[in-house]
């Protein structure tokens, strides 16, 4: 296992194939929580953690249970079960073990139970046939990329509150156009690394 390859994987997942800007996933959450910087930070921390852990869990189940039993076609059901179960467990444990952290991040946990990004990471891991370490790095890179997107968006939208936007463009439409502009900038990262 080359360290360089893992680094490449993280950079590719976070910048080149950024989930929001080039794979267009997780838009509901992206537009939902990017109104304030605080919520965006809380969400991105929770997201990254859940992503890494759920990609580890689903990798183990995929390799040790589903492939030996030839149940690959059940991947959608199994992965959504794994993710939802894990998020529920994390929710309960956090409430008992650290109420302070739960008070801050609990609401985000409930939101991401069935989120398309969290589900996409195990699906892509399975599709690309990553090994365990690679799957972890892919989860981490995707989480970081999503955090980056969320933080950029939140900082722009805080300024946008003061702007005078045409009435028909207020709310979501202007956010979409904004995201388009950021995505345009992210095109510059393509070709940074050739995998």
């Amino acid at each position, binding site marked *: 296992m080359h360290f360089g390859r893992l680094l490449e994987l993280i950079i590719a997942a976070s910048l080149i194939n950024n989930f929001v800007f080039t794979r*267009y*996933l997780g838009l*509901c959450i992206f537009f939902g929580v990017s109104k304030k910087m605080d919520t965006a930070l809380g969400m991105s921390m929770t997201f990254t953690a859940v992503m890494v852990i759920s990609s580890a869990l689903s990798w183990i189940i995929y390799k040790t249970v589903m492939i030996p039993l030839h149940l690959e076609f059940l991947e959608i059901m199994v992965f959504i079960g794994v993710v939802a179960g894990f998020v529920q467990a994390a929710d309960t444990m956090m409430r008992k073990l650290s109420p302070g952290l739960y008070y801050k991040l609990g609401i985000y946990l409930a939101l991401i139970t069935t989120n398309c990004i969290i*589900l*996409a990471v195990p699906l892509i891991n399975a599709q690309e046939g990553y090994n365990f370490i690679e799957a972890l790095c892919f989860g981490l890179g995707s989480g970081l990329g999503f955090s980056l997107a969320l933080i950029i968006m939140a900082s722009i939208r805080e300024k946008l509150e003061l702007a005078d936007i045409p009435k028909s*463009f207020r*709310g979501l439409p202007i956010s979409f156009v904004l*995201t388009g502009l950021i995505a345009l900038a992210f*095109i510059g990262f393509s070709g940074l690394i050739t995998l």
Partner: protein
Amino acid sequence: MAQPNKISYFGLIKNGIFGENPIFRVALSLCPAVAVTNSLKGGMLMGVAVLFVQTMTNVTVSILRKFINPKVRIPIFILVTATWVTVSDLLLHAYEPAAYKQVGLYIKLIVAFAIILSRAELFASKNKVIPSIFDGLGMGMGFLLALTVISFFRELLGSGSLLGYPLVATKPVLIFVLPAGGFFAVGLLMGFFNWIDIKFFGGAGSSGGGH
């Protein structure tokens, strides 16, 4: 939905297409609106898949609604959705292998669409089978229509063709097939529909705050 005893089937379909159009009005499940709409075929394929999954999920949930314990209803709804998504995933993989390569990941992710779960929760779990079918058809058609409109403009402007047939001789605006163009197209179309709503129907003109 206000009077469950007097439901007009036509009204349900109209509600899905115009009143509560999943993408332009309610702003749920936006990911595929950008992801698969760089060609008309991809957009329509995705729309049909959603139409199928939404209708079948509504039917199944509606049939089972008496047997589902309210405490565990959400996981059961998700399992029902996952079943029908798997069915449509395998069908597309078998019959449209070329297109499947492009939209495959997003077809699988239909399972995480808020719109399907929310219709199962808000409508199908409280209504009989026949109205649920029409609600599913309406919502699915609203989705299909929205995706078709977006992908129509994106393919026409971005590649100068429709369904792969070249139409425009001049150089196309490449930006509209790129990821960034998808965001622009959706944003501009949303703004346009809001503008119509404000101008001609006196609506408030805000399509949700983002979900």
